[in-house]
């Protein structure tokens, strides 16, 4: 449904439209709140207050931003205020990228002193012509889901909005109030981690099923 139609429905008190909106965004909003407050109950509370603020603010909503980024921005601001108040100190922001972890194990590149330092020593192997079927297989999807569950909150938030919900980079930056550079770092780390998990998974899979005789392979 288009924003304009949805906003009109909400303004007229259409409960079903409100519930649809809740279904679509509530989980992600709780995760967005958890970037600023530590406790899940507090996050749920912040989001509930956020929904009330959304209803109150609907008459003021103008289509300068999309409805969803506007809603996220409301919750983000409230969560940040709450987080700061609770700690009474400069908040540790889980939205900062933090320590840099390389996307690929450094030992897979040629070492210092080599004429081709920094170039592949152990390049990745293609996932094969049937890669798309393998990637869509239920078991593979479970590997991806488990990897996302393990990600730091901010990375999981950004990859969910970008790659699962299909938001644009601008929308994510506006919704979470982060810079484009920060957003890309978080997204890249998350994707690199999923790629590593799949590489490991497919390698193991290959070792088990297609190469029963591969005795030289390091495990």
């Amino acid at each position, binding site marked *: 449904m288009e924003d304009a139609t949805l906003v009109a429905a909400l303004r007229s008190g259409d409960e079903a439209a409100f519930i649809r909106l809740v279904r679509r965004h509530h989980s992600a909003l709780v995760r967005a709140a958890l970037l600023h407050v530590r406790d899940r109950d507090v996050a749920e509370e912040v989001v509930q207050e956020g929904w009330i603020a959304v209803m109150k603010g609907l008459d003021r909503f103008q289509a300068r931003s999309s409805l969803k980024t506007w809603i996220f921005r409301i919750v983000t601001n409230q969560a940040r205020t709450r987080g700061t108040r609770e700690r009474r100190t400069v908040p540790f922001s889980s939205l900062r990228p933090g320590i840099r972890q390389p996307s690929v194990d450094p030992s897979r590149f040629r070492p210092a002193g080599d004429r081709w330092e*920094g170039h592949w020593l152990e390049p990745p192997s293609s996932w094969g012509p049937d890669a798309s079927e393998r990637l869509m297989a239920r078991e593979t999807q479970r590997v991806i889901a488990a990897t996302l569950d393990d990600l730091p909150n901010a990375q999981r938030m950004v990859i969910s909005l970008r790659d699962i919900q299909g938001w644009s*980079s601008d929308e994510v930056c506006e919704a979470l109030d982060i810079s484009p550079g920060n957003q890309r770092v978080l997204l890249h780390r998350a994707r690199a981690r999923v790629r590593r998990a799949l590489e490991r998974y497919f390698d193991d899979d290959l070792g088990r099923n297609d190469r029963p005789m591969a005795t030289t392979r390091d495990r």
Partner: protein
Amino acid sequence: MTESNVPPSQSSADREREAALGAFECRALVELVTDYLDHAMDPDERGRLERHLAACDGCQIYVEQFRQVIAATGRLEPNDVSDDAIDALREVYRRYRRG
């Protein structure tokens, strides 16, 4: 696995390929794939990356795997909202509408 990108002999095609490979480091490229796919690189850097990419099998596979990761992640369902949370918010909504 010690497969190498580096050609052993030095024909002019080889020299050209070496120059292309040398335009960017694989180790740097793997950190920039998201910037590359989001068109967030300056044109000069992007040009060097693409020149390298055209010559480097390993990086081509890496970028391809990144695209595959993005497509595969996109198949996951967004988290469901619990019925309890929905019911609670329906209540909040009704109380709000009643004023």
